[in-house]
């Protein structure tokens, strides 16, 4: 199969040739031709000014009883006994979708000692909280959580399931999607309901250089993950009414082949990278490991996290767990401050989801300035201490 060209509409302008990443389209004086390299990515379809290009339809078999699937669900995330903030953020997004569809919004909590957390989620917008409590759910394993969630979904049939794109969500949710034989869209940054009642899921691809909107027309539930901090946390209404409904999974669901032997939290005095509102990142411009204290001091002061570029991790100045970028972590904080980071694309793809990017570099031509909202050409060793000092002074900490 390949993209199809409408002979009547094609004017041989060549826009599709430039758009095709496979180099699969050629154009002569009259018409464009698609060859076997076409992988049906669809980029030519959007590029064509004449609307002359089409793709064959997705025809996967429909989920049985597809119209009986109703309601929007959030797969809640529990860590260390508390509900992860991404769950609240997803309830904000889920509420909007549920209202648009005119259906119930439910959230699933799996673990132990969840009663207080469950009621709290009703205040955040949930109409119903499914609570699954069992010792087999702690510590978290992909296998048990996936099987329990699959069982619950098969019993209740929601049309949409949202989950956090945390390390946990990205690990077990694909198993849920595969078991249910449905589509899953990772790391969505936009979610909306179309006139056809379908979930329109928008996500970055190619390291954020391209955005794609994706649907799952024939299977249910429609599943999407969303990174923490992408959706806004909803307000809390203590007067909201909702139902807490316990669910007991079958014994087979509670067995995991993978056993957790030990679980260790990194000893760090700063906020974890993926959860911080502010990330202060140091690059090679810091010149040596000891100078990371300038970055750390600022991060601590604003309750932020410390990030590191790949090159400083390679130098051994910071551990890998702090690396931001293609082979490290992807972050989307409110503020990302890149200090002495040149801004190689492999770094940028890990942070361009930040709301505000500040670049501090003494080289005015550093590529990091191309993605920055605010650029500061300055010597780090003057600027960082001055910034830290100013914040301290204003707080009366002199």
């Amino acid at each position, binding site marked *: 199969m*390949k993209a199809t060209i409408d002979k009547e509409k094609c004017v041989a302008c060549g826009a599709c040739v*430039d758009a095709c990443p496979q180099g699969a389209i050629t154009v002569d004086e009259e018409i464009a031709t698609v060859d076997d390299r076409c992988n049906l990515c669809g980029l030519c379809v959007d590029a064509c000014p004449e609307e002359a290009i089409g793709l064959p339809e*997705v025809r996967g078999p429909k989920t049985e009883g597809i119209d009986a699937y109703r309601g929007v669900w959030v797969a809640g995330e529990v860590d260390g006994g508390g509900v992860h903030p991404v769950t609240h953020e997803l309830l904000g997004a889920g509420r909007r979708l549920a209202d648009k569809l005119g259906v119930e919004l439910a959230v699933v909590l799996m673990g132990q000692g969840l009663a207080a957390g469950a009621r709290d989620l009703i205040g955040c917008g949930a109409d119903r909280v499914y609570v699954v409590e069992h010792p087999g759910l702690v510590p978290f394993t992909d296998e048990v959580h996936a099987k329990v969630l699959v069982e619950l979904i098969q019993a209740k049939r929601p049309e949409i399931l949202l989950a956090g794109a945390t390390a946990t969500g990205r690990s077990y949710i*694909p198993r849920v999607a*595969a078991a249910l034989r449905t589509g899953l869209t990772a790391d969505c940054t936009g979610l909306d309901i179309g006139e056809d009642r379908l979930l329109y899921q928008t996500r970055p691809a190619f390291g954020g250089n391209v955005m794609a909107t994706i649907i799952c027309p024939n299977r249910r539930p429609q599943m999407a993950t969303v990174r923490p901090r992408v959706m806004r946390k909803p307000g809390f209404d203590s007067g909201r009414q909702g139902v807490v409904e316990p669910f007991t999974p079958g014994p087979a669901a509670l067995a995991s082949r*993978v056993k957790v*032997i030990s679980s260790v939290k990194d000893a760090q005095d700063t906020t974890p990278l993926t959860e911080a509102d*502010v990330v202060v990142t140091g690059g090679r411009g810091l010149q040596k490991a000891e100078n990371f204290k300038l970055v750390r001091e600022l991060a601590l002061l604003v309750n932020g996290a410390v990030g590191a570029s790949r090159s400083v991790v390679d130098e051994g100045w910071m551990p890998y767990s702090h690396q931001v970028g293609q082979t490290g972590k992807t972050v989307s904080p409110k503020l990302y401050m890149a200090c002495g980071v040149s801004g190689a694309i492999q770094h940028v793809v890990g942070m361009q989801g930040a709301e505000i*990017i*500040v670049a501090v570099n003494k080289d005015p031509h550093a590529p990091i300035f191309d993605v920055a909202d605010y650029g500061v050409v300055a010597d780090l060793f003057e600027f960082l201490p001055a910034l830290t000092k100013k914040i301290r002074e204003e707080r009366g900490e002199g």
Partner: protein
Amino acid sequence: MHVVVCIKQVPDSKNVRIDPDTNTLVRQGVESIVNPHDWYAVEAALKFRDATGGKVTAITMGPPQAEEALREVLALGVDEAALLTDRAFAGSDTWATSLTLARAVAKLAPVDLVICGKQAIDGDTAQVGPEVAAHLDLPYVTYVRRLELVEGSRLRAERITDLGYEVVETPLPALVTVVREIGDPRMPGLKHKMRSRKQQIPVINAATLGLKAEEVGLQGSYTKVVRVFAPPPRTNREMLDGSVEHQVEALLKRLREARVPGL
């Protein structure tokens, strides 16, 4: 032990972008590379084989030219390779891709361990590894940075989490996805390089895997891309000039106007 490592040939994504004026994909200078995360998967597979004995088979699904990616990893010492290629595979989403890969793993049986990179840099979904495991009903461990065989039959793995790391154990066969900390890939050796050029790479198509055309590729996919566009451009960048004191004040003022918490 038989280790299968799944790799993907991807466009070098740093060069892929959409021209916001024309809304077309700019592909100037875009070459195909082995997905960077897959080099770590290959290294993990080779290390595991070197420690336990056995062989490593690399598989990839893609157009015929994806064979180059397999030759690149054969040059590092991977023992065998298979290319999954078929016109019917085109347009696969993660479901269809993982189904195809899973069938190929089953065909290579007996397989003790499947290793994937944590994600591919074109789609960044991190879904294919876990979905392959689901199709084969294998236990799996994601984001692995250390791997060892204990008592000849179980796998002990250290996996990173958002807050630290976990040590887990699983029986074999199993699937793992690995991160960079597992170790940087070795350099190609001369002997392997010579071999990699000549080695026969079997080609596997949908029929060989017992898959019908409607089960794979775009037809077998559950998700559909309906629109592709350029991300909203960052609003005009502002350079904060003047003395360091001025720069500090100007920055704080703007960050506070934007209500950045902690300032």
